[in-house]
């Protein structure tokens, strides 16, 4: 069947099967490979994208269910000239990534948090990112980056 959705502002169509996952459509059909597959079992959050403004795990949603939806992926976060968004820049400035595998999902989850709650507390950031697993950073610098992107003073983060 044919699906059509708006991805990062552009109208995109493609052929999918009933079982095609949204993440497969994004990566394999649209070649938007910034969205990662870590676990493929809805545990890790590497595949988080926004569907109609809400964070979802694209490995656990069927592409056909996004028919007509507005989808945002990591590729849409930076400006067209490559200038990083303030949230992405904060990840770089505060060493919120090492290997970078979890980063697209972390950024998309954090962006959803800041849209809902522009000045989250450290606890709220940690709680919101519960579904995003990072094997490298130990999380503290990710939490710092999100707090910095929200324009707040950085508290001393636990374990420092």
């Amino acid at each position, binding site marked *: 069947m044919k699906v059509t959705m708006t991805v990062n502002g552009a109208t995109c169509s493609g052929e999918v099967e*009933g079982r095609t996952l949204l993440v497969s459509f994004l990566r394999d059909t649209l070649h938007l490979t910034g969205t990662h597959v870590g676990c493929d079992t*809805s545990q890790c959050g590497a595949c988080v994208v926004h569907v109609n403004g809400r964070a*979802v795990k694209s490995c*656990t*949603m069927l592409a056909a269910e996004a*028919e007509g939806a507005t989808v945002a992926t990591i590729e849409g976060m930076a400006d067209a000239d490559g200038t990083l968004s303030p949230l992405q820049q904060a990840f770089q400035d505060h060493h919120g990534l090492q290997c970078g595998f979890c980063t697209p999902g972390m950024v998309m989850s954090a962006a959803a948090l800041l849209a809902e709650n522009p000045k989250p507390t450290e606890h709220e950031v940690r709680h919101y990112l519960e*579904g995003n697993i990072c094997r490298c950073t130990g999380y503290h610098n990710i939490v710092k980056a999100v707090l910095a992107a929200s324009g707040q003073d950085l508290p001393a983060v636990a374990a420092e």
Partner: protein
Amino acid sequence: MYAFDLVRPATLADAVAAMAHDEAQALGGGQTLIPSLKARLASPATLVSLTGIAEMVGVCRGDDGAVCIGGATTHAQVARDVAAHYPALAKLALGIGDPAVRNRGTIGGSVANNDPAACYPSAVLASGATIVTNTRHIAADDYFQGMFTTALEPGEIITEVRFPVPMQAAYIKFEQPASRFALTGVFVARYADGVRVAVTGAAEQGVFRWSDAEAALSAQFAASAIAGMAPDADGMITDLHGTAAYRAHLVGVLTRRAVEAA
């Protein structure tokens, strides 16, 4: 995943018609079903998506005061829209999984699945809620029939869950940090005619009512009324996360905490 057809009906009537086909299965938020399809634990010929059916989404108050939640309403929407009506239930929804799971997962899917460690079944049972399907009303006490087993007939769709609102209530979940499900969770709800205590994550039979605690708390609604009490460890789950005795002990502790938080 094996191949299947996906249909996205816009009305309940169309969904019921689609479910009448052989090997059709309902798709709620897919947060449980899609992983099981990937593991080839299910092989439906047709998936009938319920989340686009407007009449199955949303929260309202019934004439009798009950909070009525559409079967395809996400956990995130329950957390937002039920907060003013039944705070303990909204808080439970806010504690399920993580934000992305809550943005897709639905109350109907959770209650249909009846995972022995899921959160909603405890609220449904402790509130004496009514499961409304396309064919009938089912009382919570008749609905849960053991681990992953319910009174639902093949093809039956949960359209709504109706919760009588208690005077006081709280849900305390002892979270299993890897899965974020309840290692054990207790929902306590106090109504004019008595207290109901429902336990999830603990028993082999799935969610159950702890009647000894209900009797003691109905006589006196205070943690001290159940001091030192715990249900029998017989029939409790033993797995790598905890023994049956540990879970039985947790039930006592969490019930006392829930009474204090209510």
